[in-house]
């Protein structure tokens, strides 16, 4: 039976992990996402479903534990916040190279460096450009509600296994810490070892039976010719994902003269701005990317044909605006409004920015 609860985003994600049949969570505490591992340790899913929960000695160790478990064909995940994600990038790059499916959640805080513990969105570049070294992408999902924090766990693993690639949930401290009503998914059973061997035995290190060649999980190939072929294979995979996995939401874009583009907490604030603007007679709309990679370029390009301008609203100095600019292709002016360092913009200051930009266009 579906269950409605009032939960923090972090807790909803943790509970959804248990219910999605995740095999292992490896984490390390960091504000504002420590509730994930706290919740899991409290719920003891090792008793409920057999799911492994382990507090590692560092983010580095945690992501490499994910590597080990994922290479066995298991559903493995980790979560952290900005500084911790920087540490995990080594492992994430290795996993992209070794084609390992896994889920990584970044509950972003303000940076750079130790930054602040308040919400931020300044890890956008890091997330959508892969983050670590080498040519690769992550599929990046941006929840803007507690419900989506829960829903994207299952979606994330589906995509991770479909493409044998790491998937990132890019959230922020506000979505992680706030409580909302959430309908929890039904309990899915974890896959048995036999089922894992059946599904993923062609690549996963499940122990070599006589019937097959050994499986090797590695991102290394010292022969450049072969490494290039491997890279081409990865790029083809990313092209397929770009074609098939774009997700977004349009809010009152049909008749909008001016469109805000925002994700996560900024999208929630921008929804309010659309409402306030329309109350004042401004025809505003909101395009909310749900996948930040692949980015919803096509719809933005289409909207640009009959829209007077765009405002990229982000809790950063302006990162997503680069993707909006590329998508708009010069067809309309694109501006940015953002707060930094853990500051959350208020709806009225965003509305002021919108009005200023609209006035500029009218002049």
């Amino acid at each position, binding site marked *: 039976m579906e269950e409605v609860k009032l939960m923090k985003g972090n807790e909803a994600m943790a509970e959804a992990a248990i219910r999605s049949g995740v095999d292992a969570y490896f984490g390390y505490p960091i504000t504002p996402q420590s509730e994930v591992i706290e919740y899991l340790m409290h719920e003891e899913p090792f008793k409920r479903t057999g799911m492994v929960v382990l507090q590692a000695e560092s983010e580095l160790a945690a992501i490499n534990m994910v590597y080990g478990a994922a290479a066995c064909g298991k559903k493995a995940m980790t979560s952290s916040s900005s500084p911790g994600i920087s540490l995990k990038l080594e492992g994430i790059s290795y996993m992209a190279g070794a084609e390992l499916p896994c889920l990584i959640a970044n509950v972003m805080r303000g940076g750079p460096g130790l930054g602040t513990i308040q919400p931020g969105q300044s890890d956008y570049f890091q997330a959508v450009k892969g983050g670590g070294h080498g040519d690769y992408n992550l599929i990046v999902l941006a929840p803007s509600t507690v419900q989506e924090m829960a829903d994207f766990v299952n979606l994330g693993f589906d995509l991770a296994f479909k493409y044998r690639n790491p998937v990132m949930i890019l959230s922020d401290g506000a979505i992680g810490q*706030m409580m909302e009503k959430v309908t929890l998914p039904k309990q899915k059973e974890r896959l048995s070892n036999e089922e894992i061997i059946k599904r993923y035995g062609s690549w996963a290190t499940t122990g070599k039976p006589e019937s097959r060649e050994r499986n090797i999980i590695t991102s290394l190939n010292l022969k450049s010719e072969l490494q290039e072929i491997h890279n081409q294979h990865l790029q083809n995979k990313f092209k397929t994902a770009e074609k098939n996995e774009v997700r977004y939401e349009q809010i009152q874009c049909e008749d909008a003269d001016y469109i805000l583009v925002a994700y996560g907490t900024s999208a*929630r604030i921008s929804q309010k701005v659309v409402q306030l603007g329309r109350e004042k007679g401004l025809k505003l709309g909101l395009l909310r990317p749900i996948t930040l990679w692949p980015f919803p370029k096509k719809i933005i390009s289409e909207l640009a044909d009959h829209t007077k301008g765009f405002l990229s609203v982000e809790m950063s100095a302006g990162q997503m605006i680069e993707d909006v600019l590329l998508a708009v292709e010069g067809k309309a002016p694109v501006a940015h409004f953002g707060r930094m360092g853990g500051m959350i913009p*208020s709806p009225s200051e965003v509305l002021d920015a919108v009005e200023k930009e609209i006035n500029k266009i009218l002049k």
Partner: protein
Amino acid sequence: MTEEIIIAGFGGQGVLSLGKILAYSGIMQDQEVSWMPSYGPEMRGGTANVTVILSDDRINSPVLNEFDTAIILNQQSMDKFESMVKPGGLLLYDPNGISHHPKRKDIKIATIEGAKEASELNNKKTFNMVIMGAFLKIHPIVLMENVHKGLEKSLPPRHHHMIPLNEKAIKVGMEEVKVIHDYK
């Protein structure tokens, strides 16, 4: 109907749990709810605040800069949030410890002696429920039966024997709240 509320005071006054019980009560009557706390070091003894929204529709921003209701439980919060009450909105506060009283004329202002009433109930932890009663008297946005269900949901079972006392505190708050200014 949408009610946007800020509850602000000291950590330890039960600010966050008051917000949680309100939010759960909203869920019990099938409303959309959001509960957005200030978090971080200030929670440890400093100021704490939480934005609670109850709505019949999808909630957009969980972060607001104007509120239908501000429930103010210390001076710092009064200084910060008095100006953020929407014209025609409500400012409810406990005068205990307040030296600069609100000056707005375009809003409704009410007081509740929460700390005093809680100590008369011989349980200082009922403070936040006295405050909730005072608020619900003026803005009856949730039915008492749903508050009861909300209490059941948000309190761990080992504290369920405290529900009658909490409900008594809500009643006291309803009886003792005083509207000291009305904009009409």
